[in-house]
């Protein structure tokens, strides 16, 4: 049986470069076809709900914005030992804490964690509400895709390119956005009399 591979983009699409993980997931979904053992997901900011995506996964590839002091747009690769080096956060107040290491430790405890982990970290430039991606993050996203395809080759699974259209994220800033639900054909004279 082929090993199950999960590719997950992590981050909030509402907060500038924090949306780079979901953006990369969107690029992969729109642009590529993968083998059946590969799942691509926009995981948002899952907290401990990340656990649900770890179980049964043999190899995990995550894309997330990172804070590592490097210049914006830097792509850094982390493996399991880098992620677990510092352990879980000392005090857990709510389910939102960044819990990558904690989720991995719990999954491991339950005997169902992935053996192979690659975290593709992209150093963000800004995290402004509604700002969309900065130019450095956008360039880094393209580089992240290259890294992911290389990792898939290493994991011995195939992929093919579906589309060369640039990916367009639904959460783009207002100025660049078209209505997601389609043209506003529903705007009609007042019906309710209010």
């Amino acid at each position, binding site marked *: 049986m082929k090993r199950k591979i999960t590719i997950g983009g992590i*981050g909030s699409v509402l907060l500038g470069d924090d949306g780079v993980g979901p953006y990369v997931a969107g690029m992969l979904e729109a642009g590529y076809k993968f083998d059946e053992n590969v799942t691509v997901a926009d995981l948002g900011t899952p907290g401990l709900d990340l656990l*649900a995506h770890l179980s049964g996964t043999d190899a995990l590839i995550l894309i997330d914005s990172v*804070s590592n002091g490097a210049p914006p747009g830097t792509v850094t690769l982390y493996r399991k030992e880098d992620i677990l080096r510092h352990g879980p*956060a000392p005090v857990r107040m709510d389910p*939102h804490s*960044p819990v990558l290491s904690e989720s991995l430790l719990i999954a491991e*405890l339950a005997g169902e964690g992935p053996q192979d982990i690659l*975290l593709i970290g992209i150093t963000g430039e800004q995290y402004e*509400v509604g700002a969309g991606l900065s130019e450095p993050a956008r360039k880094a996203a393209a580089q992240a895709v290259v890294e992911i395809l290389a990792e898939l080759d290493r994991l011995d699974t195939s992929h093919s390119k579906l589309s060369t259209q640039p990916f367009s994220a639904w959460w783009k800033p207002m100025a660049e956005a078209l209505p997601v639900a389609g043209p506003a054909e529903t705007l009609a004279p007042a019906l309710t009399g209010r």
Partner: protein
Amino acid sequence: MSKRITIDPITRIEGHLRIDVEVENYAVGNAWASCTMWRGIETILRGRDPRDAWMFTQRFCGVCTTVHAMASVRAVEDALKLPVPANAQYIRNLILIAHALHDHIVHFYQLSALDWVDILQIPKADPAAASKLAETISPWTRNSRNELKAAQDKVKAVAASGQLGIFQNGYWGHPAMRLSPEVNLLAFTHYVQALEYQRKALQVVGMLGSKTPHIQNLLVGGVANAIDLDNQSALNMEKLEMIHTLLDEVVTFINQVYLIDVCAVAAMYPEWFKIGSGVTNYLAVPDLPLDSEAHGYDLPGGVIMHGDLAGVHGFATASDPIFRQSVTEDVTHAYYQGDKPLHPWEGETEPDFTQWDGEKKYSWVKSPRYNGQPMQVGPLAQVLIGYAQGHALTKKYADLALGQVSAIGKINATPALLHSTLGRHAARAIRAAMLGELAQKHWGLLVDNIAKGDLTVHNEPVFPYGEVEGVGTHEAPRGTLSHWIVIKGGKIKNYQAVVPSTWNASPRDESGAHGPYEASLLRTPLARPEEPLEVLRTVHSFDPCMACACHTFDPTGRQIARVKVL
């Protein structure tokens, strides 16, 4: 001499709950709850198409995704007076229930059980004795000696490795930890099993919503699920049967494990029925509409003031006129501009950041008030409001749970004990059991309605040129959620989300009244102030969730929580 303790998980940009308490003579004398990040995310919605709003609001919070999506479509539907087809109501209800079951299970086991369970006691347990003990309180088939032994071995292996891993930061051996090694082992075994069952609940969300964590099937006016019992790509009988099976398994876990564990832990820490009551004004909204026009609901809502169950006021609908009129948000102690409480439709979110000052402004959370009063929301509010109104399903499981606590603890557990830290945990388990029964019911309602030949899932929204306003409510896992929308000419003019944790984590208001977290901490005894386990027990009992999620992984390990004693 009083000591000041700050519990503040520090991260670079993520918003967090911070708790400050003043300790005098080993008890909390005063308390402040703060959120450390601006949550003005609503501003992103202004000018957008109301039909898209739910996709954005679903991203407010990575854990409460579906709840914000649901409240948003309901707000637009309320503004347009747009009915939702019965099928869509049932499909939405099933998603909401499955999400809540997942959330409640994770909250108890993964997020708060280790406040009560001492991992270091587990290696001392006798698995055979633990199994025998379990047999006396539950028919659960996975309490065998072998299953318990396997769980114990996991803990032993972690301990032997010298790296405590996931357990490295607990307050193990704390004098407030009092369970026997065998009960610790049972609870830990269920902690591991819970991972499986919470996942099954999420699978149901994924099957109906087409993806998790962000469902894709919502539309203003209904859902996008095609129903065709014989079509492989639609919602068909095979998928419905699979959903039924998954729900059955989750419901069995809740009734035979979760509810029993909460009762057992409660029975062994009975003093915690007297700690942590705080604000005893309660608010819940009706939810799980029973038909297209929502003529009835399976979860009751209403208001209880000052703990007076006999004086309960019930809400007839999910956007009850009294509820619509009574909510305001105060910013006296929050980092926002403004000099008077505002109704959410007039709500403003203009930041005014100053340094943390317990006398002045100290939180990014506003103070929602109901007729000017702080309100506690969450499963406890819902259970008490249902119980006070004689709601049959609420009474069934509340009485069952109180009976279990009485039997195990050899005490007389009455509903009055529920105004407490343990009451919040018990109410959450009671609510989970209620939701489990309702999951099966709403599955049946959906299947019966489809069998009648009704395949409608969507009513098309039509927007007037003028201005309309609406409120969408949902009784979410953490309590009453309301999204308030003003639509003008088919575009969003204003949008405010009043989230459960804003009610509960609110700072003081203009009259100086504490918010529910703050009030619940007053007089809490602390055995070791430098290890404020008791504070965490009470705060965790609310299931805090600061709804300002932004997760940036920091590989340098600077996500360090601080427990600072001044």
